[in-house]
Every structure is written in structure tokens, then in C-alpha cells.
């Protein structure tokens, strides 16, 4: 339709009906439709046909979320919703921002329309209901959990609707060449690496503290790769296995990886400026290391970091039999050094230089320090 003509018609009609005290249902739905389809309105995401966008924005057409009264949809519209939800059996990961363009009356028109468009058959929404919610709801953006606690689904709908924990099929099965991702890992600072090596050994290396965190082999590499990469970047990677080697640090106790995957802390357990137990001690130096980067050596990562005047490199690969990982270090200029390892019942540790102590310390002379290797193999694999 010619925009000027429709504009004129609209003026005419809304002029007439605003003088009536009780509007007809058709008037309400017509106004709601107009508003729903306006710039910056729901249409931008949920689309004119109410079907949403496949795999991204949930549908309003036929959505169970509109059922059992309008309190839930009013709440979503006013405060937004962020977190994974299931709508009529399909999963969505996106977030909806609060809809701030509309006053109570306009939002009532819109939701009345949504409730009765595309085959939906729900109640009209009054501006009083919206006003009440606006007054009474907390200001926070809803998560699916907080929303559904307040506005739960009736049994009838709860199976196909609600929230869920994303889990994804492993995208990598047999590892034939090293795979390196920088991503959020549990039990590491946010500047972490997840690395998979041929032979299917995996490890987490933390650039925030320049240290190997843990190594595992069973249960596959990290999951949820796709979710992380197509979402806002929030998910902390998950994996199924239990590490056969996990470096002990003074600042973490035995927190589980689930615990260490938390993203909703008010404050951290610790920040990296407090980390004072860097595993490599160089004679006479108290400094903490700085991460310098990494090089790919035939695809394998060779991390480098500086400690005082010294540069340390750590190349992590597999042994020939592919039964464990080999960490090859260089320190230059060479100097007397101690490497703290973590002895464990699940791994055997073998060093090609220096003197190994029962507490896991590897004592290195200046000569040893220029090039030494540590082989870590899971115990069950080697017996």
C-alpha cells in the first residue's frame, strides 16, 4: 500500500477510535498488528509471520509460552530473556533484550495481537496487566530459570518447553593432527588453550599463568564447540573424561570441574595477579612469567613465556608410541632451575634430565635447563 495513503487512513481511524472508550476487539488487534510490525518492534526478530528465525529466534505462532495466561509473555517483553530455552520441542540459544519502545497500552495491543494472530487463541491483554507487571517485576533480565520459577509450565506443556543444558556431540573423534583452540576451559583463567593431539590425548594449557593445567585421554575432546562458536561466546567448554594429570596449585583446592566451570560468580576464587606458585623456579628470581605466544612445530604448539631475562619454551607433543604427552622445555639463557610437577597415582612421570624428587620437584642444573623433557603417561595405559 502507498505509505502516505496508509498513513492517512491510519490517522483517520486512530483519531476515530481514540474517542471511543471501549475499543472493539478488531480495533485492538489491528492496532496491535500495526505496532508489532513497526520499526524496532517484535517483527525484527520474530518476523511478520510469527515463525521466528530457524535455529535462532523462537516462533510466537503456536508457541506454548503464550499459554496459561499472559503474565509470562508480559514479563519476557518487559524484562527480556537470556539463556537456552525450548519452545515446542525446539532449542534456542539466543537472548531477547527488554522491549523498551512501548508503553503499557502499546504493549497490551501488541500482546493482544500476538495472542490472537497466526492461529493463536489466547486472551486479550489489558494495559492494567502490563502496568502492574512493569511496577512489580524486578528489573533484572530473566533467565529461563528465574522466569520459569515465577511462571512455571503446567504439566501439559512442560515436556516440550522450558530450559535445558546444552550438550553437543563431539565434533572430533579420531584425532589425526594436533587441534588447537583458544577457548574458555574449566579450571583455568579465561585465557586458556584446549589442545587435542594425535592418539587422542588432550590438554588444557593456561596462558593466564603460563602453565599446563591438566591432561586427559578418555571421553573425547571438548564438547559444545559449535555452541561456543555460534553463540555469544559464553559457554565454558565441557569434556567427559577425568584428567590423568592435573597440576596442583596453591590457590585451588579440589574443586570439581563443574565448580570451576561456573560463570556466574560474584567474585573469583582468585585472580591471576595473586598466583605466586609458577611451576618453574629460576635461581634467584621471584617474578611471575609473561606469556609471549606460541609457534606451531609441525602443528604442535610450542608455547613461549618470559621469566626475568629468560625465555622459556614448552613444546607439547606425543611420545612415539602415542601413549602419553611429552613436554619439551628450553630455558635460555640456561640457569639452575626447579620444575614442580604433581605426582599422582594416575600418571607416571619420567624426566630425561635432572634429579626427580618424590614431592614432584625436578632439580635441574644450568646445563640440564637448556633442553629437557618430561613424559607423562596415564598409568592404566602403560601397565
Amino acid at each position, binding site marked *: 500500500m502507498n505509505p502516505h495513503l496508509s498513513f492517512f487512513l491510519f490517522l483517520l481511524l486512530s483519531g476515530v477510535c481514540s474517542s471511543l472508550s471501549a475499543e472493539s476487539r478488531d480495533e485492538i488487534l489491528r492496532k496491535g498488528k500495526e505496532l508489532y510490525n513497526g520499526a524496532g518492534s517484535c517483527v525484527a526478530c520474530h518476523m511478520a509471520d510469527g515463525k521466528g528465525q530457524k535455529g535462532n529466534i523462537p516462533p510466537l505462532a503456536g508457541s506454548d509460552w503464550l499459554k496459561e495466561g499472559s503474565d509470562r509473555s508480559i514479563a519476557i517483553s518487559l524484562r527480556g530473556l537470556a539463556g537456552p530455552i525450548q519452545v515446542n520441542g525446539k532449542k534456542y540459544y539466543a537472548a531477547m533484550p527488554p522491549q523498551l519502545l512501548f508503553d503499557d497500552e502499546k504493549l497490551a495491543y501488541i500482546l493482544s495481537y500476538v495472542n490472537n494472530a497466526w492461529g493463536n487463541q489466547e486472551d486479550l491483554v489489558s494495559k492494567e496487566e502490563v502496568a502492574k507487571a512493569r511496577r512489580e517485576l524486578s*528489573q533484572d533480565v530473566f533467565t529461563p530459570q528465574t522466569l520459569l520459577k515465577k511462571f512455571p509450565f503446567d504439566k501439559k506443556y512442560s515436556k516440550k518447553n522450558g530450559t535445558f543444558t546444552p550438550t553437543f556431540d563431539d565434533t572430533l573423534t579420531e584425532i589425526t593432527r594436533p587441534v*588447537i583452540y583458544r577457548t574458555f576451559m574449566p579450571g583455568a583463567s579465561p585465557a586458556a588453550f584446549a589442545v587435542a593431539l594425535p592418539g587422542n590425548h588432550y590438554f588444557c594449557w593456561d*596462558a593466564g599463568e603460563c602453565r599446563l593445567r591438566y591432561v586427559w585421554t578418555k571421553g573425547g575432546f571438548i564438547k559444545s*564447540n559449535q555452541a561456543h*562458536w555460534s553463540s555469544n561466546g559464553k559457554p565454558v567448554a565441557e569434556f567427559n573424561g577425568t584428567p590423568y594429570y592435573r597440576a596442583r596449585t596453591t590457590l585451588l583446592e579440589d574443586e570439581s570441574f563443574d565448580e570451576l566451570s561456573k560463570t556466574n560468580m560474584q567474585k573469583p576464587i582468585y585472580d591471576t595477579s595473586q598466583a605466586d606458585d609458577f611451576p618453574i623456579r629460576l635461581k634467584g628470581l621471584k617474578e611471575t612469567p609473561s606469556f609471549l605466544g606460541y609457534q606451531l612445530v609441525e602443528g604442535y604448539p610450542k608455547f613461549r613465556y618470559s621469566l626475568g631475562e629468560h625465555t622459556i619454551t614448552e613444546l607439547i607433543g606425543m611420545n612415539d608410541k602415542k601413549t602419553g604427552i611429552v613436554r619439551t622445555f628450553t630455558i635460555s639463557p640456561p640457569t639452575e632451575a626447579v620444575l614442580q610437577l604433581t605426582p599422582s597415582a594416575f600418571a607416571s612421570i619420567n624426566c630425561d634430565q635432572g634429579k626427580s624428587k618424590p614431592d614432584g620437584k625436578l632439580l635441574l642444573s644450568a646445563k640440564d635447563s637448556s633442553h629437557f623433557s618430561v613424559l607423562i603417561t596415564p598409568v592404566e595405559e602403560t601397565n
Partner: protein
Amino acid sequence: MKSFFTFIFIFWTTSMPGATAPQYSVTNIPAPPTKYKNFQIDGLTFLPNGKLVVCLPSGEIFFRDLKTESWELFAEGLHNPLGVIALSNSELIVTQRPELTRVRDTDGDGKADDFAVITDHFGMSGNYHEFNFTPVRDKQGNYFFALGTGSRGDGVRTITRGTFNERGRPGRMHSSAPYRGCIMKLTTEGKTIPWSYGHRTPNGLGFDLNGNLFVTDNQGDWVGSSKLFHVQKDHFYGHAASLAWKEGFEGTPVDTPVEKLAKMRSRACVVFPHGTMANSPTKVLAITPRAKMGPFTGQLLVGEMNRPRIMRVMLEKVGGELQGACVPFFDGSPLGRGCNRMDWAPDGSLFVGQTKHTWAGGEGIQQISWNGKTPFEIQNMELQEKGFKFTFTKPVNREIGAKKETWPFSRYFYEYREAYGSPRSDETKVEISAIHISKDAKTIEVELAELKAWHIHEVTVQNLTSSSGDKLSNNYIVYTLNRLLKNTPPEPLQIKVASKDSKGKKS
């Protein structure tokens, strides 16, 4: 009556006929062969040899040879790379979450094999919203990059990087890890310093042709509507959280009286009205002499996430500071949504990368080319003593241009407040007192009954055609009038004190 008026207003904006001028065409570029079926583009530039460079959320970087139309994988494994500069055909500078990284192919096999930290002297709480946006490099070789704040949509991780600062933690968008919400400078001597403060989601730095640095920000808490700032050393641009890192600033930023913050803040040179102009502006790109885009050299392009739109920004110095206007330029299908990164191809066409990251947006790469013929556009909008001077790319139809109804001006401002966004305050129609059209019919001076400093002035030019009957392609234009040419009144605070219950949750 007032609500009736705003009701009409919303309707009106939907029927705005904005569109890309027919002199421009949009071509889709085939997606890179990513393994992960996600074609969002978070970084885009060109190598000196003319190859296109794109970064994906999967951490992959691809090159595309535009002649052979083939893709090659250059690097993988980066953590949400959100911007890229090419230093040579084998060396890139990339902003990824934890670092500014130099990514190099040192053995000439076409694949990156060395990833060197050029700076990681900033913090990460691990909150997903702490994006590390767009590196840019000035003529001297200093780098600038922009650190997003953390979102109240989530908290912090169990181990955070950099000294945790509890003063920056409260509020909707927080800054508990060093310098979140700052524009950072990495100097040629290798020092990393916070350069400016008060940013919320600064998704897109860029220089103009005079070397001025700009950054966009997204509507939200402390940001009434999205903005473009002229970035200057030590300035504070309004979002409170990052003040936790400003030397000499005491107390918890969000608990600071709004009056005090309002007096500290520097204004935007352009405000993008929410819902009508932009909801989530992105990269700033100057129209260089090399660009083949029509008669707009020296102006800026700014992308927008929520709708298929790239805006054009024209600035002027008034009272010693930059301010100016924005107008949609490429608007509507076939342009995609989520225009996030863009750069000039060797042939002067514009390449655009689209993304969404769960927000409104899109995915893919498009090329915008100009056919060399002059589009009918508003070329410039400049402040005058009593109104604005519009310069057009072609002579206008004098009869239509001279009518007051052609120029339905209104003005308003956005409040400065902690709450999310802001309504338009004090929205008023502005009467036209006189219209003067130049001899060549290319400039029109529109005098207003009143010009109000520190207010946004906008107009949707009605039915204007060129003298030969072309429709004005983009007729919605918004001027952020901070300072007047003469006698600018003192800057009003334009604050709103948040009521108790709408304040950020504290615990």
C-alpha cells in the same frame, strides 16, 4: 494527545521509504569453507596483494583470492577474533579475547605458524560480554583496541585475569577486570595504557582522514541511545563502570551521584536514535579517496547490527569539537543485517562482513559496488546560525524544496541515567521560519524558529525529488546539535536519577 502523537510517530517511521540508491549494487560473496557451518564475520580487511581476509567466531581466518574466487585457510584456533589489520601478505594483527596477537606465516607455506602476543596487559573476568574489539593503527604505528564491559546477564569466572576490582563489579554492565570499558592504546614503545574511559560495548574503532579516532557504543545502561564518540585521551564517555580504573577516581562508579558523572562526561559527536537510526552500531570506516562510492570522500561509514543498514556520518568542528549528522546510506534488502566489519577492496568497492552472536544480525559477506553515476542523496548537513544547510548531490526540485511541509523537523534529547536506554525527552516539533535555495539548486538553507543546543534535531524530508525527478534515496537525517556557532549555552546535565528499585542489583 501526547501518546497519540508518539503512536503516530512509530507508525510514521515504519513507512519511511529509506533505501539504497539504485546506483549501488549488492553482491553476495560465497561463504568460506569453515568446518563449523557458521558464517558470521567478525573481522574483515584486505592484504596488500588484494586478497580478502575474514575472521570467524570459530577462530578461523580465511583469505580469498578475488580473481580466482578461491578460499584458503590461513589460521585457526583463535578465541573470538573481532578485528584484523594486515601488516603484510603474511602478517596480521588480530584482536582476540585474551590478546592483541601478531599472526604470521614465517615459512611461506601460506599457513600461519606463529602467534605472538603483542599485548595482553588487560584483564578478563571471563564474562562472555568482555569482547575485545577492532584493532586500528595510527600513522605512527600505535595500536588502539576497545574492551567491552561484562554483562549482568552473567557473572565472572572462578579464575579471572588481572587484579580483580570489586569497585567495578556492581551495575548492569561491569568492569571488575582491568580496563574493561576502556579504549586501550599500545604505544610504539610497547606500553599498554587505558586511553579513554566510559565505554559500554565499543564495537568499532576507526580513524577519519585527518587522523581523529572514533568509536561507537551501544544503547544500554548509561547510554540513552547508541553513539559515536571522538576518542580523546583520558576523556570519560559516560558508562560508569570503567571509572574504577581511572587514576584519582574514588568510590564505586555506579554509586557516584549522577550529577558528578554527568559533569565529567564528554558528549557524543553523533547520537544514533534508537529504533529509527541504529540500535547497535559497529565499525567506523572513513570513505577514502581510493573508495569508489560517490561524492562522499572524507565522511564516515558506520555499520548497524539490527537492520540491514550502513549509515553515513558527516562531521564538522563547532566550538572546537566535532559534531554532525548521520543518515542511512545503504538500507534495506538485498543488504543483510548484522553489518559488523567493512573495508575497501582494491577496486574501491566496499566489502561488508555480517555477524550476530545471538543478538539481532545476520551472517555472510557482501560486496557493495557503485556504477559511477551520481545518486540523489543528501551530501552534507551543516549547522548555520539559524538552522541547517543541506547540500545535495544533484539540483533539487525548487518548488518542493521551498515548501515548509517538506521539512518536518523535531528535536529531543536522551537522558543520561543508569537505567537501560532512555526515552526521547522533551520531544517537540520545530517550526520552519525560512527556506533559501541556492542558484544552482544544490544547497538549501532551512532556518528554524528555534535552534536548541544540546538537542538532537531530526527530519524526514518529505517527497523531495531532484530537478529531474529522482527520488531522494535516504531522507531521514539526524543532526546531534551540541554546540551552536555562537553563544552556546552551558551544557545541561540532562540526567535522570534512577529510582531505588530500578538501580543495579548490589550484593
